[in-house]
């Protein structure tokens, strides 16, 4: 027939199976998320720490091979007291520790950037669907609620995966290439797995939390505010609690020192100087003692649990084993300084399963909120 029907045509194509239906939701969400200019800029910025990490690992790899290229840089780092000479002399011994600390620093920066990424793209995920009443359109298609929610979580996973997990893997490969020493893999493969696991924990915890918040309101601005309050305000509150406690303990501890200074009058200059030296030495010792006490006390301190990001960091440190690394690095320090060194650099030492409990609790709460807010249409209008 020379003239073709311009009207409605039937379609006999192939409909895919059910397993990948959530992927359509994720793709759609990613496409919409990338529409924002600010978001794209922040995404780009979040890839920068990966570059720094890669540089650090490459430098270390070269330093291990005692390459001339890096001698100047290494000397500079030693003189700036960032690297201690003991470490530089025997780099291979401290390889795992340095890699761990580099990854730890990278992941802590990425944690903050992830929070920012989530506040830009997270609130819109479900709240806009509620505002424009898209749920009947979704649920009248062969899509279960779980597909919908998994798809939305996938959006967060896509963006955070891009900024956390993919750099972890790529920089690991890069560091491997620059060291040309495959024994690294046996030393540090656990680090790779741990960092990926940490990334997954962040994605699941933060993703579920922002989805739950997003499903509570039709106005994405309120959701963004709520998220910021969970992140920033909880940090502040936790910090305030910790600081007040620290100041209290410090006052209690140093009260004794004060009393010793009273009896100064009526002594010769020689004796005064000796007394002052003794006093100063005592002060130093007491300071060191205080800090170690602080470290011991932090093992049972609940105050950091208030801050959401502190919980995530604690899990991260546990997975990566950073505290053990600091202990090992302190061996390079002169003996009296060791404890202080560890106390200064490692974080609060409370049990990791407390943080895990808090995060699991939040996860469960988010799941409950989601199943209640994203209701199926089985209700009387």
């Amino acid at each position, binding site marked *: 027939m020379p003239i073709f029907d311009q009207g409605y045509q039937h379609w006999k194509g*192939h409909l895919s199976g059910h397993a990948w239906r959530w992927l359509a939701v994720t793709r759609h969400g990613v496409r919409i998320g990338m529409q924002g200019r600010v978001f794209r800029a922040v995404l780009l910025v979040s890839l920068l720490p990966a570059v720094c990490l890669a540089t650090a690992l490459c430098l270390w790899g070269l330093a291990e091979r005692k390459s001339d290229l890096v001698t100047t840089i290494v000397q500079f780092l030693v003189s700036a007291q960032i690297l201690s000479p003991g470490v530089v002399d025997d780099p291979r011994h401290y390889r795992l520790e340095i890699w761990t600390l580099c990854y730890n620093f990278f992941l802590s920066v990425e944690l903050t950037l992830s929070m920012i990424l989530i506040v830009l793209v997270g609130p819109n995920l479900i709240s806009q669907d509620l505002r424009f009443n898209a749920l009947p359109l979704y649920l009248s298609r062969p899509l279960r609620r779980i597909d919908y929610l998994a798809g939305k979580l996938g959006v967060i996973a896509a963006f955070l995966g891009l900024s956390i997990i993919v750099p972890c893997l790529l920089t690991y490969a890069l560091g491997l290439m620059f060291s040309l020493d495959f024994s690294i893999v046996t030393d540090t493969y656990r680090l790779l797995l741990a960092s990926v696991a940490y990334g997954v924990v962040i994605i699941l915890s933060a993703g579920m939390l922002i989805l739950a918040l997003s499903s509570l309101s039709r106005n994405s601005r309120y959701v963004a505010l709520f998220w910021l309050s969970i992140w920033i305000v909880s940090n502040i509150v936790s910090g305030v609690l910790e600081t007040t406690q620290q100041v209290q303990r410090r006052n209690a501890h140093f009260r004794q020192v004060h009393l010793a200074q009273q009896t100064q009058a009526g002594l010769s200059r020689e004796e005064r100087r000796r007394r002052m030296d003794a006093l100063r030495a005592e002060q130093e010792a007491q300071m060191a003692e205080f800090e170690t006490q602080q470290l011991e006390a932090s093992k049972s301190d609940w105050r950091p649990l208030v801050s959401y990001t502190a919980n995530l960091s604690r899990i991260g440190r546990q997975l990566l084993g950073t505290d053990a690394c600091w202990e090992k690095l302190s061996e390079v320090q002169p003996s009296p300084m060791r404890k202080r060194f560890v106390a200064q650099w490692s974080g609060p030492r409370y049990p990791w399963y407390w943080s895990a409990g808090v995060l699991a609790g939040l996860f469960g709460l988010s799941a409950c909120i989601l199943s209640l807010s994203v209701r199926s249409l089985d209700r009387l209008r």
Partner: protein
Amino acid sequence: MLFQFEGVTKTYGSVVALDNLSVTAPAGAIGLLGPNGSGKTTMIRSLLGLTRVDRGSGQVLGMDFKHRQLDIRRAVGFVPEDECLFPHVVGVEFVTYAGELVGMSTKDAMQRSHEVLDYVGLGEARYRKVESYSTGMKQRLKLASAIVHDPQLLILDEPTNGMDPRGREDLLELARDLVHNKGMSLLFSSHLLPDVESVCEEIIVLGKGKLLTEGNIQQLKQLHNRSFEVRLKADARPFAERLSALGCGAQMRDDSLLVQIPEGRTQQLLWEVAAQERVQIRNLRPQRSTLEEVFLKALEQA
């Protein structure tokens, strides 16, 4: 057979939405009528498997709606009544996404999306954000997203609500074309009876969760054999008096006349009187009950 319900009951707390409903619907265009609270929405939701029924069973296009809900939704397109949108996309992306959610590949969905957008008449507007669409355009968009996967059954829930006459006309024309020329079955739920009449051949009337009546529209609208509706150009009263004198029944109704011709005579009697009285008969039709009358009678009988 389009769908079948057998003894279906659904209650929400103390409210009985569907009460032991048993109905069989043939393929084709079916109108779903009923006052508010009669269970129409619940019935549509149970067809789609969005609501679990307390008792009874049923099938849609041969598939059990208790166990094969996802398969049913693949073969059914639904245009909801309320304002619904996937936000922040343009028209084409909207329909493509709708297709992807049913399981089409992105390429198929994109190609098909343009095809159906041509069909519903959204030309260049498909490249604009959907939030900027007027009501009529949004309805067409929803229709396009419902037929993108070529369903066997299309469910329209109050599709012409709030549309201006032109838009309404276009939408009903599309519905008629899909049913009569393209072989799609249609379930049309609406309060506007003339719309239902212009598209559907069969109707199902629900009331308080029960089936009140069902059947072919033309058969339900009875023909009154000897009764005619007459409208004249001028005042009908003298005409009516002449007819009564000749033994016909004549009642005024609004601005027309209901005339009952006695046995043995035909409409020619009216023409005779008209010629004698020199009046113009502008309208002469056998009296048929309107769909509204059928509906109201069905409600009264319940």
